[in-house]
């Protein structure tokens, strides 16, 4: 389990845990919740990330502070 901020560029991750109540609520509203898969479109490496939660849902920039509070695990790519 790693913070989303550390996830690799282009990887697919599953959300394991979100720390912080208010943030969690906000993220669920944006379609990011425990158990959901995210594609890391862009990561600056221990910094902010751009993620995509699903097809037809726009991309989100998550600042470093937010990306550190989302714990994820990498999901092997299925093509």
């Amino acid at each position, binding site marked *: 389990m790693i913070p989303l901020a550390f996830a690799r560029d282009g990887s697919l991750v599953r959300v394991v845990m979100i720390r912080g109540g*208010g*943030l*969690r*609520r*906000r*993220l*669920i*509203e*944006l*379609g990011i*919740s425990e158990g959901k898969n995210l594609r890391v*479109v*862009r990561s*600056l*490496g*221990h*910094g*902010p990330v*751009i993620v995509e*939660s*699903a097809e*037809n*849902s*726009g*991309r*989100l*920039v*998550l*600042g*470093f*502070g*937010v*990306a*550190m*509070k989302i714990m994820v695990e990498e999901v092997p790519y299925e093509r």
Partner: protein
Amino acid sequence: MSVKERQFRVALAGIPNVGKSLIFNKLTGGKAWVGNWPGVTVEKKVGRLVLDGVDVEVVDLPGIYGLTAYSADEVIARDFIIEEKPDAIVCILSAINLERSLYLAVSLLELGANLVVDLNMVDLAQKEGYRVDHRRLESLLGVPVIPTVATTGQGIEELRDAIRRALHERVERARVVDYGKDVEEAIATLEGVIRSEAPVLVEKYPPRWLSIKLLEGDAVILERVSKVQNGEKVISAASKLKSELEAKLGDLETYMVDRRYKKVLELSQAVVVRESSIGVSATDILDSILTHKALGIPFALSTLYLLFRFAFEVSTPFADLLDIAINRLLHDWVLGLQGLPEWAASLLADGIIAGVGAVMVFLPVIALFFLGFAILEDSGYMARVAFLVDKIFNRFNLPGKSIVPLIIGFGCNVPAVMAARTIEDENDRKVTALIAPLSSCSARLPVYLVIGGAILGASAGFAVLSMYILGILFALLMGWFFRRFFFKGVSAGFIMELPPYLMPRLDNVAMKTWERTKRFLFKAGSIILLVMILVWLLSVTGPKGFLGSNALGDPELLSRSWVAVLGRWLSEAVFFPMGWDWRLSAALFFGFLAKEVVVGTLGVLMGVEGVEGLQRALAESHILTPLTAYAYMAFVLLYVPCAATLATIRNELGLKYAIFALAYMLLLAYIVALGIVVIGSLVGLT
């Protein structure tokens, strides 16, 4: 606003980046009244739409994702819906961001809104290879769904028709989400308690919605319910139900938001029809370079540089024209007016017109800067910049989003302070508003150019550039400092939608440019007028009384004015380590009203005309060494941009923060200027 009784009221809602302003403009013809929402400084835009000769007031709600108590904008939106009970709400969905838009639509339905859904950006969805079946969505939601392309106006007529129909036949779909047997039972029980114990609540809130919010533990709602008669009974019933359910379902709030989101996913999967698969989009290609780890920031810097060049180069002829028209023709014409007492002519010409002129000369460069910035913003690039700088900004405990006010600050600090509004976290927002004035605005540039050009010779260019870098550097450092000592805690970080790159729309860009430029004009204009009159008074009078209205043009007379008294005092008591003489000190005092006035004042005080004359006088008089000149430039950069910016901070954050900003900037400017002189002397510079 018109006193005429309105017939109907319609509100526009939507998540950010759905083209809401454009729809607002298309519906209302672009005419809007701007006010503030009660109690907060979030702008409220109201327009008018005429349907069959009937007046309909259109209220633009803030861009929001949901209706929670966690964001000020969301509380504003839902309070408006609860308090003002608009006759209909148009919820604008983005076809390319359907899930998030639908979440808002569902939240609005739950609140009992009489909803008309505008499915916008259907053209962009098509480009991405899918379409949204709006008829299916209409039958699933049970409210009208109108596909539109706001950029071309397609579907706007149909939207008008749908609004008109909705005004006459109200549809309510508050039960759009099914929370499952247990929770639904609890909601029903709680509704019963509300109706029997505190019926006053039913008059105000839709009971189902109120029950849902109470079960979710919405802080704002809990507080309001506790204040009505028997409210405590309702709350204790709610908390009992909540703990029973939580024993079974875990955190109830999460559970309910999750159910709502599941409904949204279900809706979105049912209505999205994929028509073709597409490979890599243009946005992906652009982003592979523009958000690149190594290339992204250099590219952003070059873009910023181009923006500056564009603003300064293109504006020069316009600025010159305005300068001639106001500061020469109008000024001289007023001075030559017959029948006007001499002092009145001087007050008008040297006080008011010169002051307004000093501001107007900056209008072209600021307008062009904001034009270029609006193009960058509307293309979607600024969200990328916020992403790129986030890592650096985080070291200083600031969110990447703070970059936007800092860049706007290069144009004018007044809209920069206001732009901090878009930052969600309160502490992040306050800190950003407090450091935004350190961004070197366009009014400071003439001071650097004149002084640098006169004293620093070949290194002038580098010195000027270093001012911009120093400004940003100190903004970051002060941000860190404030977070460390005054607004403790870490930055909340930020979440920002990353829109696909879009060709900016001319009307949208023009509107944004005008809105920011207007703020500069009116805010700056009103304050400067007042201060200019004061300065004029201090210049034409002295300890020995009225000096004559020609004091402003006569260095000898001026040296006996209050301004000179003040300048001398400043030089002897405050600025003695820097070695600035009374004219330089007095010019700084004048600079409070607007930075460029420093140049004009120096000109008057040294008895020369024109920029070249002033530069020659500065170079020959030896009142500045390269070292004290550089310290002077740094002081000009850091000490309070202008009275208008302070007034804006007062409006946005309150008087306390305006005084705080004034104090910290003066102190910072003094310490830095002193540091430059001391360290410079120690290493042997003169």
